[in-house]
């Protein structure tokens, strides 16, 4: 999967978790939680969806790396490249 593919996959997951949120204008370098109304339960749901869909385990100590869209993509790229 390419960086762009991963970005699309993340947007797809968030739009399922928060169907009323508008994700078109998300700034990739600002924290997601400042731009989209996500709480900690939503965040756990994102991690859970990554596991369900792509069999990717994100350990708790890595959660801070999922703060912005850019950091999420760079974190996931080595783990999803081969998918």
């Amino acid at each position: 999967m390419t960086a762009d593919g991963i970005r699309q996959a993340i947007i797809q997951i968030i739009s399922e978790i928060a169907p009323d949120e508008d994700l078109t204008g998300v700034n990739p370098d600002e924290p997601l939680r400042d731009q989209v109304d996500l709480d900690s339960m939503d965040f756990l749901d994102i991690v859970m969806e990554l596991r369900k869909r792509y069999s990717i385990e994100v350990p708790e100590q890595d959660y801070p790396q999922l703060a912005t869209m850019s950091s999420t993509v760079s974190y996931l790229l080595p783990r999803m490249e081969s998918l």
Partner: protein
Amino acid sequence: MAGMAAGLRLALYGKKTLVLERHSRPGGLNSWYRAGGYQLDVGLHALTNYNPAAGRDAPLNRLLRRLRLSRAALALAPQKESWILHYGAKLVFNNDFACLLDNAQARFPGAADGLRKLAAEARRHYMENRFFTGESARARLPEFIADPMLREMILMPVMFYGCAGQEDMDWGQFLIIFMSVFEEGLCRPQGGIRAIIDLLTERLERAGGELRLKAGVRSVITRDGAAAGVILDNGEVIEGGAVFSSAGWVESAALCPEMDPAGDAAAGAGVMSFLESIHVLDRPAAQLGLDASIIFYNNAPRFSYRKPDAPVDLNSGVVCVAGNFGYESPLPFEQIRVTHIANPDYWMLAPDKLYLSAKEEWRARSLASLPMDLPDFRSAITFHDTFTPRTIHKFTGKLNGAVYGAPAKHPGGDTPVKGLYVIGTDQGLLGVTGAMIGGVAVAARAALV
């Protein structure tokens, strides 16, 4: 609703989930049916917790998020205004809490301050998840509302919309319903209860869960004191690691011998039930001079919320004018629903022939007993249907058709049997919103353990 919500949340956790419903349609106490060419709701008068539309801490928004449902898809129509009529006094409220404050202040000087404090107390309980305190609402209310008449007027809608016991209720539960009805307000989905059920059903399937209709549970299988599955009415055995029962506490105990059916949790079960008539009108209620959304009324100095000696208590009632909400487009037809407290024993035991004529008799008496503040809409009725505690029992299995379950509640959902959880009425959060919040909470607790 609790079962669908819990099932959906479990499926979203990636659990293999099967939702079983004995009836041919999902929803339980809140469902719909067709009669006379009309699609009619049962259960839902109005959905609570309308405000605010945004903000993740709002109960309804938080619930919809947990279920990954779109609030926009429900097309929620806010109430116009609702009335509380009590022995000659009238209070008006809408989805702006200030309206209730102003109205109460005008009739009961000094009341606004107390109601504001009551709302703050309710919010605090909600934020701290303190839905049950074990205290009496009637004992605590005078700290906030000095006037006895205003106390009756505030208690009336809260009790009608979620009191399982007679005359009094848990203080924590009172506060949650007070907040849900008065501060957050009332609405109806454009498509009625069916809009919610269809959305839940579709989302459950998309999440990989399965819904089976006409599949009643005959008993719960236990192994070494833990739930291990269920046996269906047709004898089919379904294995499962956890069982969530929305049947009610005593009703679940009847399915599972290891639960004590006669324990304290059963005290006062099957006492409070209702008779409801649905009247379809040939013109909008507003044309008859009726503009209110919901009217709660009581014709006695004290509001009597208890099983009546008569088959139906006509001294009080709730009138829901389904068309008087702010819809985006007009409803296909106009309907008014009138609900009264009923005596379940009379309706459960009446011989068939008497039962049918009694339904007709009490429907007519109900219409004749409505308060003078409402226009007489009898000549505009084109179709009607009435349901009783017996009807509710027939379609939901609730003991004596008691829609709010037993007075004792089980907020955590735990039962004496490991892996068997109660959700729905006897978990304790009531109404459509409450049932779903409770179902989601118990499911989350069970799934994350």
